[in-house]
């Protein structure tokens, strides 16, 4: 683990290409994670290092990388069988069969590999946080920022599984939850991880623990009613205040006073705990509304329409919600499907078991959906690509299935112009895969986030441990010494000279050591 850190620190490439100190830290985080115990010291060290770099280096050198000779699945268009991607800084500059290679570009040969946009986990309900929910039913004033724990293995796993963007939200066990945040799975503090802060608010229609639907709905309705009531009172008070200032008597009925006072409300008048509801009801804050059952869907739409955030809502659905597909189709809002893609139920009369493939129903109805994964299981549902592959297997077009884990979630987060496809102008959030993204034998070889290679399977200590043969486990030092073993030579470290390396999943060929460097 220490070796990993050293490796990163001493890598020439890493040092020369960083734009800011913060980025340096971000890049190094993955290798640091396992050493959680020494984190505070590590942090201080890196802070200092960053400041030093920024001060001494003096300039932010835009890194230019060309990924050359790979199969590119841009999601936005046709697959390029053998093509290249030019990355400058954090953005993609060009994608095509051939791209112009600038003189300063570091060319990475990715022939035989597949390039795919970083996958997006559009609804991470309560994971990556200290704990998923607050006990207070209506708590729009909460913010996941306060709960994000960058040291969690969850983020490391996400990166390893090819997820480049995560939308961290409060769990579903609430009535109105707090603000969410879009993050990269890399970084040492929530700030470093952040892509977009305070993106959306969480609302649950399905009752939280200890609630029934009557109580849940009443609580939800009244949260908005009370807010409206508070605002009216505020307006009235402001108008009265104004008259007082002008030394006039109250001369109009309350309705008029409210009307006139509404314009007088200043931002600072609104209590902190109501501020997010204000943004929500004015359509300035998207809402992710959780509907566990089909019956919740019409209620969710009504609540959203009644309170002015329908145009900005995304419905997060349980698997039974396919029954409300007509309502969803009419609403035309994007949905996030449950990780359980098949809904099973038993006919009460005949006892027959009925299975429904939910994305199939949505696809047929033309409902825009994104796929979710389920963390914490050893089943395939933990991978987004697996969910997409199942869709393809059940007859959904490959293009739609791939979009459901890349472009569509990006659009749902309002980040369609930055993530989700491999196109010029977009963020360089790229996966280098050993094969097709929907193939179960494919590994994530490298992850590039904001133009920086942040993950390399060859350097993944945990994977190495996992696949280590007994001899390797015994003789870790021997592996260290064997610098010329094919598995440990690092293309990124070879001074810009691309070298092809065949990485396989065979245990025997896994790199033995963890600390190879030039």
């Amino acid at each position, binding site marked *: 683990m220490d070796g990993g850190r050293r490796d990163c620190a001493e890598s020439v490439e890493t040092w020369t290409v960083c734009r800011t100190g913060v980025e340096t830290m971000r890049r190094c985080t993955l290798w640091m994670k396992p050493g959680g115990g020494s984190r505070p010291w590590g942090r201080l060290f890196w802070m200092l290092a960053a400041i030093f770099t920024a001060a001494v280096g003096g300039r932010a050198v835009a890194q230019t990388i060309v990924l050359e000779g790979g199969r590119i699945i841009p999601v936005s268009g046709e697959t390029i069988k053998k093509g290249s991607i030019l990355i400058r800084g954090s953005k993609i500059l060009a994608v095509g069969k051939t791209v112009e290679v600038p003189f300063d570009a570091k060319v990475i040969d990715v022939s035989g590999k597949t390039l795919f946009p970083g996958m997006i986990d559009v609804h991470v309900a309560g994971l990556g946080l200290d704990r998923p929910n607050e006990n*207070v039913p209506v708590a729009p004033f909460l913010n996941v920022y306060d709960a994000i724990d960058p040291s969690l293995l969850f983020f490391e796993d996400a990166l390893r599984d090819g997820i480049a963007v995560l939308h961290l939200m409060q769990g579903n066990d609430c009535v109105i939850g707090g603000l969410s945040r879009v993050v990269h799975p890399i970084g040492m503090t929530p700030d470093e991880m952040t892509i977009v802060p305070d993106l959306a608010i969480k609302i649950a229609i399905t009752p939280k623990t200890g609630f029934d*639907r009557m109580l849940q709905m009443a609580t939800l309705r009244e949260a908005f009613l009370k807010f409206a009531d508070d605002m009216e009172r505020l307006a009235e008070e402001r108008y009265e205040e104004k008259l007082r200032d002008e030394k006039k008597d109250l001369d109009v*009925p309350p309705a008029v006073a409210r009307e006139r006072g509404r314009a007088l409300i200043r931002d600072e008048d609104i209590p902190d705990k109501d501020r997010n509801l204000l943004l929500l009801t004015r359509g300035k804050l998207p809402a992710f509304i959780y509907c566990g059952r089909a019956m919740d869907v019409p209620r969710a739409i009504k609540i959203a329409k009644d309170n002015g955030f329908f145009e900005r809502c995304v419905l997060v659905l349980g698997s039974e919600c396919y029954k409300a597909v007509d309502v969803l189709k009419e609403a035309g809002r994007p949905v996030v499907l449950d990780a359980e893609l098949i809904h099973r139920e038993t006919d009460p009369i005949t006892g027959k078991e009925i299975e429904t493939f939910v994305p199939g129903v949505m696809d047929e109805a033309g409902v825009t959906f994104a796929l979710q994964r389920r963390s914490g299981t050893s089943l395939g549902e933990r991978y987004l690509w697996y969910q997409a592959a199942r869709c393809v297997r059940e007859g959904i077009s490959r293009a739609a299935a791939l979009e459901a884990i890349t472009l569509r979630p990006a659009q749902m987060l309002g980040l369609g112009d930055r993530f989700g496809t491999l196109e010029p102008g977009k963020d360089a959030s790229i996966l280098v895969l050993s094969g097709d993204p929907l193939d179960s034998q494919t590994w994530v070889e490298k992850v590039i986030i904001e133009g920086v290679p942040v993950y390399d399977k060859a350097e993944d200590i945990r994977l190495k441990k996992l696949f280590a043969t007994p001899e390797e486990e015994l003789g870790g030092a021997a592996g260290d010494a064997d610098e010329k073993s094919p598995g440990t030579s690092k293309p990124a470290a070879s001074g810009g000279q691309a070298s092809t390396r065949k990485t396989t999943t065979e245990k025997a060929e896994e790199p033995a050591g963890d600390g190879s460097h030039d």
Partner: protein
Amino acid sequence: MEAMTSALTFRCRLTRCAAALVVVVAMPSVAVVERAQADISEGTFVLRAGRVYTMADGDGWIIENGMILVENGRIVAVGADIVVPLFVDMIELPDAIVMPGLVAANSSLAGRNASEDSVGPRYRAVDAFDAYADYGRILSGGVTTVYLNPGRHRLVTGVGAVAKLGAAPGAAILRETADLVINLGERVFDPPAKQQWLLPPSSDSRIEPSLVQRPSSRLGQFLQLRESFDAATSYDVGRGDGGRSGAGGKHSQYDDNLAALEGLLRDGVRLRINADRATDIEQAIQFCRERGFEFVLTGASQSELVADILARAGVGIVYEAPLRPVGARPNLGPDPDRLDDDLYIPPALRDLPIAIAGPEGEPHAQLMLYAAAARRAGLSRRAAIEAVTIHAAKLLGVDDRVGSIQPGRDADLVVLNGEPLLATTHVRRVFVNGRTVFETPEKQSAKLVVKAGTIWTGETTIKGGAVLVEDGRITAVGETVPVPPHARVIDAGPQAVVTPGFIDSRGHLGLEGDRSRVGADLSPAKALARARPEFARVARAGVTTVLVSAYRPDSKGARISAIHTAGETRDELIVKDAAGLIFSLRGTDPATAGDVLRKALKAGKAYDDAWKKYHKALAEYKAKGPEQKAAEKKKPDATEDEVKAEKPQADPVTGTWEGSVAGEPLPEPQDFTARLKLSGDQVEGSLETFFGGGEEIEVSGTFSEGHLSLEVDLDIPIGKPTIEADIDEPDHLTGTFNIGSRFSFELEAERTEKEAPEIKISRKRKKKDGEPEAPKKNEALEPYRDLFAGKIAVVIDVKGPGVIGAVLPVFQKDYKVPFILLNAEGAGQAKEQIAGAKTGVILPTRAVRRIGREDYVQSVDLTRGGIPVAFQSDAEDGARGLPDRAAYHIRLGMDATAALRALTIDAARLMRCDDQVGVLQRGCRGDLLIFDGPPLEPGSRLSRVIINGKEVGR
């Protein structure tokens, strides 16, 4: 089936075209045309039922043979005689009773709200209703509309709603705000103290002490109600437009419950007061009167004590049925104050709109049962039905939509298999908005109950009885029978007579004029894959079983099969594959007639004995211990030795024969190779030819005087293949290759090798440990095993007293097996002998014969002599005339019961198939005939024919 489907599709298309045409003429808008097509294709039909309970006011609440026209999910017309539009689907349910979908005036389907609020008007039961859930179970009880109660555990639990089950999710809610629910009595006392949290927590927001809620007594409940209602009335002062002018008061603190209650009161909400004790009821009336509330009372088990007040107030009451079919009733103990959960509805209240609902926690589906139980509480039959339909709908304020079958109402219909309120009555089908939402599952629909004024079982007559048929077989006959849930019930009425299905004791149905001579190896039943169209004619005439045999039986006898005249599966169609053996001794010499029979029976007996011996040996073998088996194992295998000992020798047969077979329906000559070996006159060997998949098949047979007779050991349903060939010149063979008696091919072969072949198949594979070996199966002799077991009978076609006299001793002395005489002209002269032989006669097709100068009616003569007779058609679908012939015999002097027995039980007994057909008893096939008068009377109509428990279409 296919034809039906296409006809249906065609009709549908026609309907749509017609609809489109009409609309196009009316308003030429394309959009409207499309809309109309979509609407009409769903929920438009005419339903005709034996009886319709419309639940309309006045005398029109029952319509006999009523018709209901449903268009787009709404009832358009109801009546005994309505104008039916063209091209509309017709649903005919002549046995069924139709009533409106039941309305449950109370239910706990919404659960109870989980709040702590003692007064919680902000809760809405509609929030907890899942319109997407499958309510199949409740619908199966006929309940289509339910009141959703938000709970009965607090003083004010919220707003009730009315929902339809089985409707489209968007159209499920009839009333979102039906009424405000107030509960009175002990169960709402002492609500929990309420904790209030101020958020976000800070040093400014102190933690308030928890709020103690009322009521904790009878006094408290009305105090709390008055306080809450007053607070709600004044809550909005200062909020409404202009309401605050001059008041000068502060904008009151937001209170969710008061805000909700204020809105409800402003909209003039109705109350639903749940109260059991007389004192609570009295106070509730007082409260509502003083505040001008309209209200419905629920519970009201002590209504008897305040009957006059209630009657004067004209309050609608939802009673809880005094019946707990699932849960046990609680022990009340000696305390006189405990509320008795038995129900009595005093006469003064019986004219009020009364609804009956299920007790809390009991299954919602049993509403019909709850209504039935209300009769013992004092309601009339009509009032009890109204209490779960129109009156319940009125109390919920939805009687303009549901609760009765009247024009303009939703087409929520329940199809019953009997009169409502009977325990044996069940729901067969439910429509909601004209769409079928419940239908008796396949499993239950195979159950049928037939009720009639007279049931003639074949032996006894039951007045006012019923027959239960389950899965094609009769399971109960008697004055009452169990009625399985959702079973189909045919109530044929008091005049109707039910008899067993008729039997044609000798017919040729399904042979399609095939007059070839066949032997006992061929089963007429096996040729039948399914009922042919002409079968239906026979079935509709009442002949349900035909004992089919060939027109011309072989001299060694032919097989009789018992088949049904209707049936979808093989099992339904075939009653008995081998139901008897038939011999024709017509025109034989009386001197030799007996010997012909004896010879056949002897062969059969030998075969049967071989099997009996085998079974006995097998039983002994199985009884033996493993040690004995092991001991026997060591003995050398005799057969193997025999095989080895045989020496090849030059003879005309032994060697390899190669040749070909040809003939219809083989497309081209087929080669074959036979390896044969002769020892004595026995031949054995193997055959390799076009069937058998290239394997060598074992053959065996005899060779004598240049004729080779071989049987191929291959089980084919129509019989084993045989080779009959002559060696016409040395090493050359010509003859025939036969499969059963159906196919016969020309065969020619030459001997290519004279060496004794190596026979790859060792014929006698004796089981190593001495397990006995089964005799070879012979299809032609198989029926004899049943015959000697007494399971089937021999039918002997005879003519003249001489032959009869020769035949009888065969069965009386030599072979004591069941037998029947067929035709038996001249049997009249041998009556005593026949009666002594305990047999019967299948009457010839001619009823009357002229003997001398007198008409002689054999049936009359024999039945008077105590000899059972049966009828034959000697025809194929000509069997449809059999009942008429029986009627004719009655006219000629035959006893009517004897004629009926001859068609049913006597025929079945003679043919030894009375365990299957001919009698109505447990275990027999469900073959029933329903006559609207005495059977076999020419004026009686055969109204229904049921075979295997399934009605044969008219």
